[in-house]
């Protein structure tokens, strides 16, 4: 199948995703990832901590762990779709970061993404594919933040690349 032999033009791929996102917006709400990830965090924490999680106000005042939260299944679907695409195009293989600096950057980067999503109540997906197209003030605030952050991150990234 052609789709699995050649790389798809990202403009075509994102145009198709945008059309589907409009349907999702009409049915349940626009595409988002951070909300589902937060709920997964709550469910994982509940699994390990049991009833102790009830003593952390965030998990009953902001996000009450609920496995039936629809946003979780967007992320799980993305994982499934990516596995199908990678296996069908023979692009699935295990790869690991090679240098210690990569491990450190990924660890710090992951932590900052998690803290940032929860502080902002939004992720990059809801910024670009939800809030801003809804002309929500939060979208413009978030875009100014992510552009400044990406610029700052790029400075660090460049320095590490040059150092490596």
């Amino acid at each position: 199948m052609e789709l699995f032999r050649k790389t798809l033009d990202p403009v075509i791929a994102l145009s198709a995703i945008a059309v589907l996102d409009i349907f999702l917006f009409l049915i349940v709400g626009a595409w988002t990832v951070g909300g589902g990830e937060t709920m997964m965090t709550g469910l994982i924490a509940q699994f390990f901590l049991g009833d102790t999680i009830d003593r952390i106000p965030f998990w009953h005042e902001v996000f009450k762990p609920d496995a039936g939260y629809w946003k979780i299944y967007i992320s799980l679907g993305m994982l499934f779709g990516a596995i199908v695409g990678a296996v069908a195009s023979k692009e699935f293989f295990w790869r690991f970061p090679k240098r210690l600096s990569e491990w450190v950057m990924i660890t710090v980067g992951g932590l900052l993404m998690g803290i940032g999503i929860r502080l902002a109540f939004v992720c990059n997906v809801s910024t670009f594919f939800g809030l801003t197209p809804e002309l929500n003030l939060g979208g413009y605030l978030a875009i100014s933040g992510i552009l400044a952050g990406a610029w700052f991150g790029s400075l660090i990234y460049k320095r590490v690349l040059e150092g490596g």
Partner: protein
Amino acid sequence: MSALAECLVAFVFGSVVGLLVQRSRFCNTAALRDAMLFKTFRNTKALLVAMMILTIGFTAFISIGAGNPMRFDVGVNQILGLFLFGTGMVLAGACTVSTWVKAGEGNFGAIWALIFTFVGMFLFSLIWSYIYWPPAPSAMTGELSVERLQFGFSNAETLQEKTGIPAIFFGIIQAAVLYGLYRAIKRREAASAATS
């Protein structure tokens, strides 16, 4: 719609997105990082086109009272949070979408980033439980609150209500601005192709 049906719709949507992103190598991190560092715009153009389609689509449906827009107060926390997020995604080399997609390709670095995204979220849940900021949804008022650094709630719906002008009008203006950016990138690419 039942909760089960919502989850099913979300899973089908996510599966198609995962497949298309994997096959196109689209990455939101690259859309910003590559434009800033390397002056290449492959992903930036795709992001702009998607935003144009979404802006027209969302505001058209909002104009007739359809759709499910996000509703919550916004404030300084969106700027600070996405600043941290933007820094983190460049360091991790992946955003929320590409961590899941690269994980599906067997990239352990993406799985590691995902694990620490969860850890970061849990750490913030502990911090929030101490500072109670930004306000929980139940404490949001929709109004400006200087002491809580909140600007309230405003989107295409509220614009339409306040001005009496259909939301699609504002959507067309935003789409035109996005198209202007897209054209500027295309012109820049054409100019650099002509000189090389």
